[in-house]
């Protein structure tokens, strides 16, 4: 008997789509335009997400004057913090915005560190492996070093959306109102980011980035300092992903060094961007939405799938990711929607100019 998805399925789905759109659009900025295969991207989301585990709780405990060692009493303290946040919507929103901004800063900082290898003039292949090593190291520290996130135990995170649970929309459960709030917040961030990324794509900077990707030497002759541009792109791109990581951490309410791992936060986004086609914002949307919908459906229908598949559906996702990546790279490395040459001006505008000039 096939289960029918309830409303929680859709709210989760939309939330995941928005979060990963933020990630892939910002990844596109770095990889799609500049050709740097970034295998350490999970660090960017991790920066924002782990910051969420570290800072908001402590900050609120300090403001509220809650004494005692934060980490040993973390469950009790976070529960107390949540009670205050629940009755104080402006405080909650302030905390949210502050954490998102700090998450962006943390992401940007990590992006700066991640771009250091570029300064050394490293060849691209070593860059990929080195960034992966950085990311694994980063997550390892978060997973083992007690004072940050309680090591292997992880920490709960205060919930700035809990106040929404006092309201019911359309007679649905209060948890849905909270989900709506999360989606609204993430959606606003996405709109801002999407606007930015699409604008960059059309700007002179965007064309310079593509030029660099296609032919480094030629671009160098144009006199632009390539390295500084790379670094700027990395920092901005990582900062944006950091915001997505922070939002996700708030959604989960709990974080541990195992989260923001390379499979879900580096390699799936890479697959999404490749599917959609590099440097192609429309393609990125397509790739992201396709994969997220596919994955959520698999997760939802896992127990139903057990009867059809000869093996446990837990492995279906990995199997698909591996096969899709391989097939994409062999047959359609340019993605499903191939990159079109950038046409910043529309046809009419060009005709108009031509007429004015009298040519």
């Amino acid at each position, binding site marked *: 008997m096939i289960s029918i998805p309830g409303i929680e399925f859709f*709210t*989760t789905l939309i939330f995941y789509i928005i979060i990963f759109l933020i990630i892939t659009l910002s990844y596109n900025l770095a990889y799609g335009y500049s050709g740097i295969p970034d295998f350490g991207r999970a660090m960017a989301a991790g920066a924002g997400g782990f910051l969420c585990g570290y800072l908001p709780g402590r900050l609120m405990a300090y403001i509220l004057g809650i004494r005692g060692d934060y980490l040993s009493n973390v469950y009790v303290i976070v529960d107390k913090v949540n009670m205050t946040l629940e009755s104080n919507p402006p405080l909650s929103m302030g905390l949210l915005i502050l954490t998102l901004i700090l998450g962006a800063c943390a992401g940007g900082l990590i992006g700066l560190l991640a771009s250091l290898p570029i300064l050394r003039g490293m060849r691209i292949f070593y860059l990929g492996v080195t960034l992966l090593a950085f990311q694994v190291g980063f997550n390892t520290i978060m997973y083992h070093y007690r004072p940050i996130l309680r090591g292997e135990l992880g920490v709960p995170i205060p919930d700035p959306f809990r106040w929404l649970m006092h309201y019911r929309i359309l007679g649905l459960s209060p948890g849905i109102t909270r989900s709506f709030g999360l989606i609204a917040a993430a959606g606003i961030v996405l709109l801002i980011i999407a606007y930015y990324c699409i604008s960059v794509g059309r700007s002179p900077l965007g064309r310079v980035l593509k030029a660099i990707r296609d032919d480094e030497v030629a671009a160098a002759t144009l006199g632009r300092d390539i390295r500084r541009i790379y670094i700027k792109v990395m920092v901005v791109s990582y900062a944006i992903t950091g915001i997505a990581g922070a939002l996700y951490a708030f959604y989960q309410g709990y974080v541990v060094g195992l989260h923001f791992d390379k499979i879900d936060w580096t390699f799936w986004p890479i697959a999404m961007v490749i599917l959609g086609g590099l440097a192609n914002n429309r393609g990125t949307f397509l790739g992201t939405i396709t994969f997220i919908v596919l994955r959520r459906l698999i997760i939802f229908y896992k127990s139903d799938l057990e009867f059809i598949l000869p093996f446990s559906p837990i492995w279906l996702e990995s199997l698909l990711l591996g096969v899709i990546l391989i097939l994409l790279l062999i047959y359609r490395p340019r993605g499903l929607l191939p990159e079109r040459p950038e046409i910043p001006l529309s046809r009419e505008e060009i005709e108009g100019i031509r007429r004015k000039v009298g040519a």
Partner: protein
Amino acid sequence: MSKGALAALLLIIFVAGIGAGYALNMIAPVGGSAKGLTGEVKIGVLVDLSGALTTYGEDIKAAYEVAEEDVNAFLEQAGSKWRIKLIYEDTASSPDVALKKFESLLGRGIKIMLGPMMSPQCASLRSSAQSNDVLLISPSATAVTLSIPNDNLFRFCAVDDLQGPAIASTIYSSGIGYVISVFISNEWGVGLNTSVTEKFISLGGKVLKYIPWSPDTIEFSPVVESINSAIQDAKQNGISLDKIGVFIAAYRQILPIFVAASKYPDLSKVRWFGTDGTVMIPELVDPKGHPTETSFAASVKFTSTMYKIPKTRAYEHVKRKVLEKLGREPTIYAYGAYDSVWVVALSLAAVNEYDSMKVKKVLPIVAANYYGATGNILLNKNGDLAKADYSLWRPVKVGGKMKWEEVGVYYCSTDSVEWKEGYKP
């Protein structure tokens, strides 16, 4: 793509998704409409059917199945219009998989869930359960840090702040004054370490060294080397080996640890003590298949605790039924699992609504008045079992065969250990 089109696309997805979900919710509600229960009332089950806790998971699932049959038989006799239906999801002994399965169940509108089994899984689900008004009843997550009043997590098993004193008293009453604490670095292990060592120190004992090890350790020779060096230091300070004990909080990792430890002569001359994570492991009483581990466990008189429940009528019934299904007796946690199904069903009947928060409110009252496979279920303010006794088990040669034998009992109310005949230290 133009920004306007982008915004419109997002808006459409958003509205369409919410609309679809809302509509579907109206057509196929989960447990009947708001007032009155009808049809199949769905209860989610998060159980480990693969990974490190597979054997325990199979036992617990069998107990849930027995309970579902019993409850539905009762509901049929009562002529009620509803039955319960348990929806099982395999959480693969992993906190991440547990979260995904939780989301999947939640996506079907299920708000009452039994499980998860492991403390780290509970930790990762807690916040989401809280924000989505989901009621969780775990049969086996024993970590101390999860004892929080008024949250949505209930536990029908003894919590480790009761197991710690049991182990500490066992060690101390064996004549051991110095202990080395070796523990897995997760919610459960860290809590047990604190609870055991605090009690041991309060009894007058001393802790020589703390050796935490990460859950993803695959090679144990550095850990065992560390234990050995602590023992060598103690020897140099004049402490005799028969006064030293090793406390170890691990799961199946005890097997490679024993293999490594067997290569150090002094390590088999001290006593080793385990927990509910190592009790009844079949490989420790298997001289043919696992000779090294079995002989090491026997030579160090490896004593592990398991929480003790009275042998009620329901207990015998569950034991018999699971024996029929699986060919073996279930783990102790299966009995709490059985009881949780009854308590949830009875609470649902009292509330007569599929409302998880209303059920949560009456759950402790129903539990206190229910006498099941684990006897009385008196929950404390944290929603966890208030008292528990522990039995002590050890691999022993009985009649020429190695088996796990109960060698003593720790009584919670008198805070003392009673050793059985022939096993007095």
